[in-house]
């Protein structure tokens, strides 16, 4: 049977970890969304050099482990664990979000860009006011998936002493010498976050499939 005294005695630590996991994931989601949108627009902009730079970012980052990036941001800068971890997660996730957004933009019919340009909007304006708002709708379910991945990947903060849920779990198990039960509680806390998100994304995907 699980030793619930571990949960009750260390409830504040668990909550603190949960808080940092949520904050780090949210900040990383928001900033990788901004960075990812920028890279996606670079990928499809009518400037060869920008296309190339965007592709290099996406291909390079997607093909290396997120832990390598997190260690690198931690060791090469003067950041604390949480900041370094969140920056690392942002750099990594932005590459995936950029691909999702690019696919979304590509799914908007080409005629829309031409129509917007012919009404006198510049390329940037047409992108911002006509194409992107339509693309975002298609991008929401994959963004949801990336958010779930972010919550799970934020556990890497533990490796750079970032204070997240996994890190607090490690501290508690080192203090109580009861690793098994501690990790089961850590797992339950993660599931409280990820299961509703998974169900939500599944629901959105089904609804999108129907509306098409």
């Amino acid at each position, binding site marked *: 049977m699980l030793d619930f005294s571990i949960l009750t005695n260390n409830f504040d630590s668990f909550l603190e970890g949960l808080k940092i996991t949520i904050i780090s994931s949210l900040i990383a989601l928001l900033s990788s969304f901004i960075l990812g949108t920028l890279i996606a627009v670079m990928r499809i902009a009518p400037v060869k050099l920008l296309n190339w730079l965007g592709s290099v970012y996406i*291909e*390079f980052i*997607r*093909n*290396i*482990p*997120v*832990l*390598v990036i997190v*260690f*690198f941001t931690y*060791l*090469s800068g003067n950041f604390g664990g949480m900041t370094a971890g969140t920056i690392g997660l942002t750099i990594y996730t932005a590459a995936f979000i950029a691909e999702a957004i690019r696919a979304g933009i590509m799914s908007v019919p080409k005629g829309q860009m031409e129509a917007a340009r012919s009404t006198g909007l510049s390329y940037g304006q047409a992108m911002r006011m006509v194409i992107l708002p339509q693309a975002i709708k298609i991008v929401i379910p994959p963004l949801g998936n990336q958010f*779930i991945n972010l919550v*799970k*990947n*934020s*556990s*890497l903060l*533990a*490796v750079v002493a970032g204070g997240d849920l*996994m890190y607090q*779990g*490690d501290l508690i*198990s080192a203090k109580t010498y*009861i*690793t*098994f039960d*501690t*990790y089961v509680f*850590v*797992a339950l806390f*993660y*599931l409280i976050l*990820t*299961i509703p998100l*998974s169900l939500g994304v599944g629901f959105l995907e089904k609804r999108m499939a129907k509306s098409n």
Partner: protein
Amino acid sequence: MEFLAPFIEVYTLDNLKFLLEGFAVTLKVAAISIVLSFIIGSLIGTLRYARIPVVSKLLALIVETIRNLPLLLIIFFTYFALPEIGIEMEITSAAIAALTVFESAMISEIIRSGLNSIEKGQVEAGRASGLNYIQTLRYIILPQALRRMVPPLVSQFISLLKDTSLAVVIALPDLLHNGQIIYAQKGSYVIPVFVMVALMYFIVNYTLSLVARRLELKQT
């Protein structure tokens, strides 16, 4: 040129050999895990597809739980928590076991959605022509579904190769671990080591992703 000095200092033949040795461990652990995960994942995916009353529901619960947990937690759990209930493994086995548990859940979903993508009418047609359910799956559904599954399976292998790096937390002597040993010698080694480690991962994974893309194009 000052900037280049640590690069020249780090990229000695010995260090490169040491990193490659680590990469060999990464590749070995990833290869064993992908084979095991493919076998277990196929089994789970097919059992879920077949909608066997209690079994399918139970497997769905297990798969969803694992898919919603961080891999790092599963690795820690396998190596540090399981010994408390008498299951003790050395580092490499623990890494392979943890990766296999996680990736089997991922692969079972690829298999299941691949199977689901074949129209239900084909099962009925197979059954109507006198094949039993297992035969229908084996000769009609699986061969078609497998072809569709190949690109996502290659992508999953890329994920697995990247995920193997998490086993440094239990000191698996893989590429990242050996990199850590080198940069621990001197602060200025950090950047050159990370550049080389990232390049090694990139070359292998990028090649695989090109293969996946080509396979995808071939199908459409």
